[in-house]
């Protein structure tokens, strides 16, 4: 399960809409081992393509070093699909390289509806998971 605060969910969707029809991509960092996404980091899609994304290599180095210095890790890695469903493609699965991350997919194929789904991708296996807003947690 991914616990994703509403404002971060909105930030991901806003970024995806802003970059449409190109794919948008980014990271949400959080304290290492906490599984809490906290710090939203919009990344440049160096491919600027409607069907492919890649983090700019030097930007990725900078962000990964900052996370390391701050005791953070990439809790969420997100990107958008601009004409297809919010589900990992074979390419997404082949290149998934952070086994601990939640892979969030957004589809911007419909201008009126936001599709946002989250997945674990490890060893070539995709497992969908629930996305929950922490304010919706059941009271004790």
């Amino acid at each position, binding site marked *: 399960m991914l616990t994703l605060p509403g404002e971060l969910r909105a930030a991901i969707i806003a970024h995806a809409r802003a970059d449409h029809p190109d794919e948008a991509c980014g990271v949400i960092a959080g304290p290492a081992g906490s599984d809490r996404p906290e710090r939203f980091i919009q990344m440049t899609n160096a491919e600027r393509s409607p069907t492919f994304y890649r983090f700019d290599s*030097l930007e990725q180095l900078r962000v990964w070093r900052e996370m390391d210095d701050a005791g953070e890790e990439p809790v969420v*890695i997100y990107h958008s699909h601009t004409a297809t469903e919010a589900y990992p493609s074979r390419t997404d699965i082949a290149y998934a390289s952070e086994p*601990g991350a939640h892979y969030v997919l957004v589809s911007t194929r419909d201008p009126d509806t936001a599709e946002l789904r989250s997945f674990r991708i490890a060893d070539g296996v995709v497992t969908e998971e629930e996305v929950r807003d922490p304010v919706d947690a059941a009271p004790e």
Partner: protein
Amino acid sequence: MAIEVRIPTILRNYTGGAKSVEGSGDTLASLLADLDERYSGLQERLVDDSGLRRFVNVYLNDEDVRFLGGLDAPVSDGDTVTVLPAVAGGATP
């Protein structure tokens, strides 16, 4: 001679969990060959028949080695080499 090589999470099974290892060599190619002697299989994750694998980023200090000659990039004592798998994907089939 010691060159620090920072290993990404997904490759730490080759280094017994170590996030940083040391090696020696005059070029990136010889450094990777040196590491492969102690961490068998690591080199193949980084290099294929045509050179550095396309979706692995290798940095020498603050620069991407693609701009420094790739596997021929000279390395020296005190350098830091960082490996990060590219974060990439997309709807493209």
